[in-house]
């Protein structure tokens, strides 16, 4: 049967890749530099309104942090806003609300491409550079202005170094650092403000506020001091710059109450923005600001405070105020308030230029003789039209991919039908597949997918209980284990629970590390019972694992119990030291992680050899499973480690239930395994949004000049750790009894997930195509498609087929 099934898997992969290629095309970008469109000669005599520009980007500065009374501690900014020396706006930032695409938007004025969101995660890569794309930085550069940059090094990925005369990039890698990232930026200020003739444009990008959000949510106790710190930075700049300097304070995106961003909720898309200059005091305030006194006391549920604009509108506004052409790909509309700084003729000229530029992108014929107000309306409608049709889909590829997957699904269904004769065990799989497939059409079901898996898991458990009513204890244990898994992390976008196990364990870190130690040692001892030598090796590797996890936590300032800290530092002293124990420990992390990976590989090779040369060895898969689990633990964040203990209890209970009451049916077990793979994936803290891809363990044992494939593999292992656990566990359970043919069983066990992915894929593709102009296509459906592709490539093909296939081959 393998000869029939494996080609089907390949066919499915080809179908998915073809569809993705059609769905995620690179956006076509106009190259070349912009020119004035409307009466170019008249622009040349207009005087720039400002000479110097300071842009202060505060990462994840949500609008209420700037304007809303109980939240905001920007007292100096409020004072300026009330005086009229600053104009405040709520800036809508187009999803995906992650830094790299937003910076592209803020500088070029274009709407982001979905690939940018992934590239934001992928890190080093040159394809997202804006070297040849027009932006206001490029325009300043062409006009021989000096640009200085301090802050998040994403800017340095985007722009070539020759744009800047002085740079100092900070890395956003260690999210747990709230202070140093910002001090590294602020320390340049005194010198720069003292020598203002040395620059024309200064860009500062502060990351601390975003880090606080990621760590402690939007209401973290670290927020108020951070606001005050940022406020003092604003004051410092404002007090020392001259009248003809424009200071622009903005967030690149907002955040939701959990402190995450990437999606399209109101909190994430509402960034604050503020234009400040002493010169603005000479003009009337924006209308909505005249009516309000800052800070605004009433809370707005949509985070809309003061005037709402589009974040990209800053691009034509800066272009107009500094009198250079609007960057070519911009679809921004000049902020009407800014026109007050111009004389009526000039204002009309700038507006017409903006209109002509927008019309040139949309391909419309610009109309003549419009009043300014009508023109602004017209431009806004062109803008929203352009934002919607940002990408062109390749319909031929979409069609081929969809049809191919449909054919594959039919073929897999037929194979399924033949191999089981439509037995009762197929019913749960059918239910699971159809429920999940239908859910792809609702954006909230995609966002809250973990709820569906929970719903299915307890239904499966309930069905099992109805079948074996007499066994309350086992079922209750399973239910309690499942409830622990569900309560461990928050997942999805909608509900945030305060007392998750993760939070509790972080508070009571003694318990956490005691449980971690138990989990790590129990895994090996349980898996390797019997042979003494193998047991010693297992304990050794557990020791390395726990030492590394503890050392990592110390280096990153997480709290760990005193006894563990002392032990770590003592071990670190054995090696040649420089006197600085923390620095030593930091230096040891990379070699330590490499040692761990080598030991784990060595142990696995040893297990294989032991199995080859000994007769009747039934515990081979147990030992391999133990080693694999230790690797998975190594790649998980420390507060999630005790979950593997829960998994062990759960899997032993499930195994006994499966043997006793369900006739050891392979199909049934694989369906349950599929549900558990997904449930635990989500309850590890992942969601269907790109924002929750966890990178903290992707760099274990990776030094400075790293290989992107290694990092990618470590990232996948880290994020899919619980799913890999369950995939291997199911394999272990299936082969724990003697079977007539091992390859027959292997094939039978691969069928359910193949069928699920095929059917689910058909519906997901259909949903993506039907809703390709849906508001959430880039924030919900496309990320889901990405996750689907990675589930298929990584979990199904690499883990379930290739790696587990090799294990069965060695059996």
């Amino acid at each position, binding site marked *: 049967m393998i000869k029939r099934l494996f080609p089907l898997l390949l066919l499915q992969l080809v179908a998915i890749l073809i569809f993705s290629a059609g769905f995620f095309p690179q956006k076509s970008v106009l190259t070349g530099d912009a020119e004035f469109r409307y009466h170019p000669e008249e622009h040349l005599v207009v005087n720039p309104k400002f000479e110097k520009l300071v842009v202060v980007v505060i990462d994840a500065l949500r609008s209420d942090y700037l304007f809303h009374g109980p939240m905001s501690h920007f007292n100096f900014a409020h004072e300026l806003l009330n005086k009229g020396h600053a104009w405040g706006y709520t800036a809508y930032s187009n999803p995906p609300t992650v830094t790299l695409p937003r910076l592209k938007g803020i500088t070029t004025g274009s709407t982001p491409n979905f690939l940018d969101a992934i590239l934001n995660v992928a890190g080093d890569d040159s394809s997202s550079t804006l070297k040849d794309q027009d932006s206001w930085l490029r325009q300043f550069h062409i006009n021989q202005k000096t640009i200085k940059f301090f802050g998040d090094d994403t800017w340095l990925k985007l722009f070539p170094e020759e744009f800047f005369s002085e740079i100092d990039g900070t890395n956003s890698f260690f999210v747990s650092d709230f202070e140093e990232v910002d001090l590294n930026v602020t320390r340049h200020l005194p010198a720069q403000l003292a020598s203002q003739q040395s620059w024309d444009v200064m860009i500062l990008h502060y990351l601390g506020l975003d880090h606080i959000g990621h760590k402690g949510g939007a209401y973290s106790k670290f927020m108020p001091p951070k606001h005050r710190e940022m406020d003092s930075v604003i004051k410092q700049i404002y007090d020392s710059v001259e009248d003809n300097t424009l200071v622009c304070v903005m967030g690149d995106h907002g955040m939701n109450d959990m402190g995450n961003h990437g999606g399209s909720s109101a909190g994430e898309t509402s960034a604050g923005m503020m234009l400040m200059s002493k010169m603005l005091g000479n003009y009337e305030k924006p209308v909505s600001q005249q009516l309000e006194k800052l800070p605004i006391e009433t809370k707005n549920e949509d985070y809309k405070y003061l005037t709402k604009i589009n974040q990209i509108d800053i691009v034509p506004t800066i272009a107009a105020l500094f009198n250079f052409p609007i960057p070519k790909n911009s679809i921004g509309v000049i902020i009407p308030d800014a026109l007050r700084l111009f004389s009526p003729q000039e204002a009309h000229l700038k507006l017409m230029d903006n209109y002509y530029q927008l019309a040139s992108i949309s391909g419309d014929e610009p109309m003549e003789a419009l009043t300014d107000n009508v023109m602004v309306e017209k431009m806004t409608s062109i803008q929203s039209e352009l934002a919607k049709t940002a990408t062109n889909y390749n319909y031929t590829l979409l069609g081929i991919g969809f049809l191919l997957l449909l054919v594959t699904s039919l073929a897999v269904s037929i194979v399924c039908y033949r191999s089981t004769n439509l037995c009762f065990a197929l019913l749960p799989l059918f239910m699971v597949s159809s429920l999940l497939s239908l859910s792809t059409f609702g954006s*909230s*079901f995609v966002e809250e997918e973990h709820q569906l898996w*929970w*719903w299915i898991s307890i*239904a499966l458990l309930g069905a099992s209980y109805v079948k074996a*009513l*007499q066994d309350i204890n086992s079922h209750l244990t399973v239910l309690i284990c499942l409830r622990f898994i569900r309560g461990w992390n928050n997942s999805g976008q909608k509900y945030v629970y305060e*007392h998750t196990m993760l939070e509790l364990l972080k508070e009571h870190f003694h318990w956490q590390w005691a449980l971690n130690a138990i989990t790590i040692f129990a895994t090996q001892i349980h898996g390797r019972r019997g042979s003494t030598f193998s047991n010693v090796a297992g304990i050794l590797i557990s020791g390395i694992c726990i030492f590394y996890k503890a050392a990592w936590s110390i280096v990153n300032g997480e709290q760990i119990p005193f006894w563990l800290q002392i032990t770590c530092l003592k071990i670190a002293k054995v090696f040649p030291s420089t006197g600085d124990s923390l620095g030593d420990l930091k230096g040891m992390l990379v070699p330590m992680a490499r040692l761990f990976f080598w030991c784990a590989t060595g142990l696995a090779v040893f297990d294989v050899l032991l199995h080859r040369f000994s007769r009747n060895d039934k515990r081979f898969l147990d030992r391999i499973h133990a080693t694999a689990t230790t690797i998975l633990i190594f790649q998980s964040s420390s507060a999630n480690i005790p979950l593997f203990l829960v998994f062990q209890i759960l899997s032993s209970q499930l195994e006994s239930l499966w043997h006793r009451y369900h006739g050891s049916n392979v199909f049934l077990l694989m369906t349950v395994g599929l549900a558990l793979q997904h449930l635990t994936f989500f309850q590890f803290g992942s969601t269907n949004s790109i924002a929750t891809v966890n990178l903290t363990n992707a760099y274990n044992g990776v030094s400075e000049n790293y290989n992107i494939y290694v990092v990618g593999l470590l990232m996948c292992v880290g994020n899919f750790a619980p799913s890999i656990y369950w995939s291997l566990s199911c394999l272990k359970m299936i082969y724990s009894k003697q079977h007539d043919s091992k390859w027959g069983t292997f094939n039978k066990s691969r069928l359910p997930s193949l069928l699920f992915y095929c059917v689910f894929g058909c519906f997901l593709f259909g949903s993506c195509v039907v809703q390709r102009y849906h508001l959430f296509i880039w924030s919900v459906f496309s990320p889901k498609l990405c996750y689907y592709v990675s589930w298929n490539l990584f979990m199904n093909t690499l883990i379930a087929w290739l790696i587990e296939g090799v294990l069965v081959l060695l059996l």
Partner: protein
Amino acid sequence: MPVKKRGMKKSVSFSDDETLTRVRQSNDKKHNASPDGPPVYVKKTVHTVPLHLVGLLYYFIKLSDSYDCVTLLYLLVPLQIAYLALQFNRNTVYGHKVLKLRLSLVPISLGAALILTIPCMLIIILLGAPIAMLLQKTWLLAAHCCFLGLPAVYSVFNCNFKVGIFKKYFVAIAVGCWISCVVIPLDWDRDWQEWPTPLVVGAYLGAFVGYTVGPYI
């Protein structure tokens, strides 16, 4: 927080497992005399249709302001007693004859239902309800489920704890709750999506279907 509520399974602890398994074995021929007593069954008749549940649901959804679970519970208890006395008990056959309502058993089963709310609430939490937040509302949901099961609880007492026969009524309520969880993840932000409104509605619908088609199963 989809919660599948399989409430009164805990009530099994009141009976001994042996009886239960024997009842299960004789389930399909329950109209015949079983060795441990007279057969107990509910007549197949339209008289057991719990119309008052429809009325209560109508009140809950249309009339009450902001889905008032507490008032609904006050209304539910007397109506369930009336339903038990006038409809359910009159159609339950204990060994070839219909017994009169034993008035002494009514307060006992009311008390039992009240006590059952605690294990029921624990099970709802195990099935996914939040633990610390909304505990009071979770208890209200448990109370609704338990009092919806009141006729079955009474009959369990009256027939010497043959839980197996009346199991289906509890399962129906639980399945109703389970299905109704589907609306919870939707991002419509309606007030009827708030915990535990959809589950209460689900429980009532489940109970309605259960008491209507229960005798035929």
